[in-house]
């Protein structure tokens, strides 16, 4: 299909962004194309550079059921809602789910999650600390989960983890907390896409994220900034 010499032109096009405005409650149809590997016909160096994100975008289609209720429980806890019964289990299940969604499709063996260790580790943040803000709570939860090795080769221990593994686990936890802090999508089936977007943002802002690992206050500030951007 070709257009005439006089059109279309940007100003003459039906504004698709109006559809976005109208469709904010009904996300864009046809966006599945986003999930297609972008570099299929590109030269190898460019294709390789695209692989990581393309794999991430495709992965949520193959994961287990989205723990929607648990996600909302954890979101509420981070934002100051009194923890309901079973709150620690919800944190553990959400962690397990998110690590699976973010699992690289190839390369090194995936990390394992111990929901028991994660639930125990979350006790302090869920029941005993009273930070003022959601990002502060998220930073505390990060410390609990990282310190306990709830994610690892042998969960509950640091066995088998080199520095690169440790950095990857911490980045994964930060990605998950950015996702959990941000506004929930109107359609809960879009949670995996939101998590993937969070992963992309954390990847692009790797330098900021690395700098934020220096302390709880810096991490809380970075989590606040990134979650507002997703």
């Amino acid at each position, binding site marked *: *299909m*070709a*257009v005439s*010499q*006089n*059109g*279309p*032109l*940007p*100003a003459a*096009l*039906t*504004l*698709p*962004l*109006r*559809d*976005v*405005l109208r*469709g*904010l*409650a009904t*996300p*864009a*149809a*046809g*966006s*599945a*194309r*986003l*999930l297609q590997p*972008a*570099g299929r*016909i*590109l030269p190898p160096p460019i294709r390789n*550079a*695209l692989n*990581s*994100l*393309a794999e991430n*975008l495709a992965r*949520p*289609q193959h994961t287990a059921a989205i723990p929607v209720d648990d996600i909302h429980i954890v979101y509420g806890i981070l934002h100051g809602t009194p923890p309901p019964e079973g709150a620690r289990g919800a944190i553990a299940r959400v962690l397990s789910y998110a690590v699976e969604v973010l699992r690289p499709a190839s390369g090194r063996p995936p990390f394992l999650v111990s929901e028991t260790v994660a639930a125990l580790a979350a006790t302090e943040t869920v029941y005993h600390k009273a930070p003022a803000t959601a990002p502060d709570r998220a930073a505390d939860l990060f410390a609990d989960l990282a310190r306990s090795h709830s994610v690892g080769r042998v969960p509950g221990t640091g066995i088998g983890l080199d520095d690169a593994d440790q950095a990857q686990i911490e980045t994964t936890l930060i990605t998950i907390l950015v996702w959990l802090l941000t*506004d929930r*999508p*109107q*359609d809960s089936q*879009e*949670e995996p*896409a*939101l998590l993937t*977007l969070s992963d*992309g*943002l954390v*990847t*692009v*802002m790797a330098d900021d994220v690395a700098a934020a690992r220096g302390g709880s206050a810096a991490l809380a500030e970075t989590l606040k900034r990134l979650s*507002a*951007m*997703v």
Partner: protein
Amino acid sequence: MALPVTSPQLPVRKSIRRLRWFIGAFTQQVDRIAADTGNVFDTDQRALAEVFVEWLRAFEDQKPSDPEDRLPYVGFAAGLMLRTLLRHEPVRVMSKAHDADDTNPAYFWPEGYVYVAFCLNVRALVLEQDFQEKQATVPELSELRTWWSFRENTAADPALAMAFLDLFAGEAPQWSTPDIFRPGHGAQIAARFFEPIEAG
């Protein structure tokens, strides 16, 4: 799977600062132009995320505090977006329509056309929502020689895209250091070029 989007209560000037809205809106723009032209595009999601982050940083860096500067900053921010898109080139045309007319900007430079359309559309929506202003339509937008100059000049200096976007939007381009915002300078210019939206 569709992408998540932000609350419908958020105006575009706020939504554009959310990655989920940016990617969803940009993707819809690409899809719409592909449907209208027959061109086939591929979008690099990683590069698009980089565009978003770089643009947001640049946007915040020069964001004016004086309310009088808010209107001209809309056009400036749209120009920053175009500059950033041209730097990262997140879109690649995979094929053109079989009967593509290369004297039409949509076929002469398909990727540039997508970027300009997206930036003009976002700009127009913010102007309409926040200032009840209508973006002007100018002949330069359809002139091949202007697009040829746009493509050549921005290949050498992507910042010039900001001046070209002003031109396409009917404003007086600032060819010298277009990526530096000049507080207190643009309101009068903008007032001359924007048309009030008719009631009803």
